[in-house]
């Protein structure tokens, strides 16, 4: 029985449980004349949840465990002798899997049944050709051990999946029936089903934690390798970034951090005022129809692939800034610059600020506006002094999101700001960011186990810690200035 059929069966059982549970609750209540503790639907829900959730958990666990168990068993059947020189056991096992899959097809094609395979009435002396017929290409000829292992594998898998189907469906029916029997009018069905849901909610919020753990774990290991090869003091305090192919690279993070900070700052200087003004205009001034068109339109800005922005920076904004500002002001003649990338990135992240802030400002109750207008405040005064402070937590969240996007962006920086790591105050100079270098060092042509590549992980980890600090700060600020309305 395939997994999707098992899923369907469990879902069907759970749906059935819902209806039966509901009906039983209703009829019990009618019989005893007592009042149900919860709405009848909740009784249905408990049965449905009991029928479905543990069964699905079992299914998932089984799917993970079964291959491990069977592989271990099959592994034992394969002597070292059949493992080709330089090859790996795992490849032989995958051969086993392939053959096992192929056998099904062979049997089907020759209209044979299981028995034929076991009693050897099918001629498998030329297994390779047989399998080739059904589109399973194998490298060399198959040793008998492997073939036997494949048969066992096939058998075990079959048994395993049958057992799984039985176990899962039995569990589903069992728990469903148990929770069905448990229904009494005073059963706290709502609490049970809400408890279930609450644990789902908790489960969901742990994903964020798991993700963080995953990220840190996947960065830390290689970062340690990096710091074994490259002194940490140089990495953190050197002001030169200059990787070399032949070793002797200088990998100071400071110019990259500076570039990240500088470019993000400019992007936010563009996006925050414009985005907030847009949010204010749309939520407070604009007509409904303008708003309903302009808001999604502006959101498209966030969906335009960054390569378009990058080319826009490279071809239009860069030369423009160079010819009209940098050169006349004597500030250099670079067509890629921090300012170029910052401005263009700022445009890209406008919707992060504008749309989210707009929603939050829209949620501020009208009574607060009335209170302010009633005192003779103008609309702009009301907005600045009442609505913005009330919406502050949401707005800070939006700005943080925009900043995050700016920090993570690569294409615009590569094309707009260049690839040169520099510590400079001049906004018309080319600079680059940590993220760009993470990408370029990871996808470059250097050997993996060299500091030049591994530095990407250290960069990622440092940036992670850095933004963590900024976020703590932001949380502190929001807590301090938060204004809760009723």
């Amino acid at each position, binding site marked *: 029985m395939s997994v999707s059929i098992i899923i369907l069966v469990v879902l069907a059982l759970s749906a059935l449980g819902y209806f039966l549970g509901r009906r039983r609750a209703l009829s019990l209540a009618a019989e005893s004349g007592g009042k149900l503790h919860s709405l009848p639907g909740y009784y249905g829900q408990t049965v449905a949840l009991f029928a479905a959730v543990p069964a699905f958990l079992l299914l998932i666990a089984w799917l993970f465990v079964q291959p491990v168990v069977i592989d271990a068993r099959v592994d034992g059947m394969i002597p070292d002798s059949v493992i080709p020189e330089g090859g790996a056991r795992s490849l032989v096992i995958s051969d086993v899997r392939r053959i096992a899959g192929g056998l099904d097809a062979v049997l089907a094609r020759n209209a044979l049944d299981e028995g034929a395979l076991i009693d050897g009435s099918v001629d498998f002396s030329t297994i390779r050709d047989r399998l080739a017929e059904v589109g399973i290409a194998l490298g060399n000829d198959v040793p008998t051990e492997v073939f036997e292992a494949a048969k066992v594998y096939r058998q075990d898998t079959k048994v395993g999946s049958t057992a799984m189907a039985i176990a899962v469906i039995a569990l589903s029916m069992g728990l469903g029936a148990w929770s069905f029997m448990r229904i009494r009018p005073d059963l706290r069905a709502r609490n049970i089903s809400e408890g279930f849901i609450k644990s789902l909610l908790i489960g969901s919020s742990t994903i964020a934690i798991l993700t963080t753990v995953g990220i840190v774990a996947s960065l830390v290991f290689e970062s340690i390798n990096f710091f074994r090869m490259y002194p940490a003091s140089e990495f953190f305090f050197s002001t030169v970034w200059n990787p070399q192919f032949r070793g002797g690279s200088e990998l100071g993070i400071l110019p990259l951090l500076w570039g990240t900070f500088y470019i993000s700052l400019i992007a936010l200087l563009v996006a925050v005022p414009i985005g907030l003004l847009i949010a204010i205009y749309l939520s407070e001034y604009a007509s409904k129809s303008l708003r309903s068109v302009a808001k999604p339109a502006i959101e498209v800005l966030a969906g335009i692939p960054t390569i378009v922005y990058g080319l826009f920076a490279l071809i239009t904004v860069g030369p423009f800034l160079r010819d009209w500002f940098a050169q006349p002001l004597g500030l250099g003649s670079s067509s890629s610059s921090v300012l170029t990338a910052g401005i263009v990135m700022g445009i890209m992240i406008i919707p992060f600020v504008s749309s989210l802030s707009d929603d939050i400002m829209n949620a501020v109750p009208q009574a607060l506006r009335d*209170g302010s207008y*009633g005192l003779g405040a103008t609309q702009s005064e009301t907005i600045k002094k009442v609505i913005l402070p*009330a919406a502050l937590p949401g707005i800070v969240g939006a700005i943080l999101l925009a900043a995050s996007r700016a920090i993570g962006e690569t294409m615009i920086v590569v094309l707009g700001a260049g690839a040169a790591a520099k510590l400079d105050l001049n906004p018309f100079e080319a600079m680059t960011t940590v993220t760009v270098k993470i990408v370029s060092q990871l996808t470059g042509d250097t050997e993996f186990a060299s500091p030049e590549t591994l530095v990407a992980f250290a960069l990622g980890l440092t940036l992670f810690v850095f933004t963590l600090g900024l976020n703590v700060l932001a949380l502190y600020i929001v807590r301090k200035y938060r204004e809760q309305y009723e």
Partner: protein
Amino acid sequence: MMNNMSAMTTTMKTKAATMNPSKISARGVQVYYGDKHAIKDVDIEIHPRSVTAFIGPSGCGKSTFLRCINRMNDTISSCRVEGHIAIDGEDIYDPKVDPVQLRAKVGMVFQKPNPFPKSIYENVAYGPRIHGLASRKSDLDDIVASALQKAGLWNEVKDRLDAPGTGLSGGQQQRLCIARAVAVSPEVILMDEPCSALDPIATAKVEELIHELRENFTIVIVTHSMQQAARVSQRTAMFHLGNLVEVDDTDKIFTNPDDQRTQDYIMGRFG
């Protein structure tokens, strides 16, 4: 009944027109919320330096009419006002009129207390700040303190002016809103049931305040308490189903109303 009523309003119109001078004068005011006709052809004169009480059953349009006087209805998009309302002879719905300046002159206390999510101090200081009423911090402190005193809230909050205004009890919030309105010293104050959430002592204080303010200001107050209307107002207007049933001196209304409905309402025989 319809006939009876329109006859009545005609009488009143002529009557109102002969009375002079009036601070606020409304003629033929109609208010619609979308299709709903909430105020029907109301004419009224409100005298300066006096207290006018609006009474009438719930939902009859008192708040709606009150909000017309300082154009707070502008903020409800479905709301449409027709007719003519003048303050000091100037039409407030004239396109030249600046609602902001109007509202500075015509203050308002709302039916549902709506403190800003700011500190108590900031709630009161907000109006004086935007109108530039205090040049120094100490002036502002004075204004805030005196406004809170007038609203009878000072003693309860003087130690926690930095606490959020939303953390106050219902009655305290309402008094905070009164203090907020008083702090900008408007010429006209519109009060929509200012005492509904107040205990008798606080109510007495606010009534005292109204009494004081009357010397210099024009006050319109919506109230459900006949006693209160009788105590504080010089004139009383009775609304019913969007119509102004009658408006006259308070004494007259409470002793010898022209309209049967007023009589019934006052006697609690209504509905």
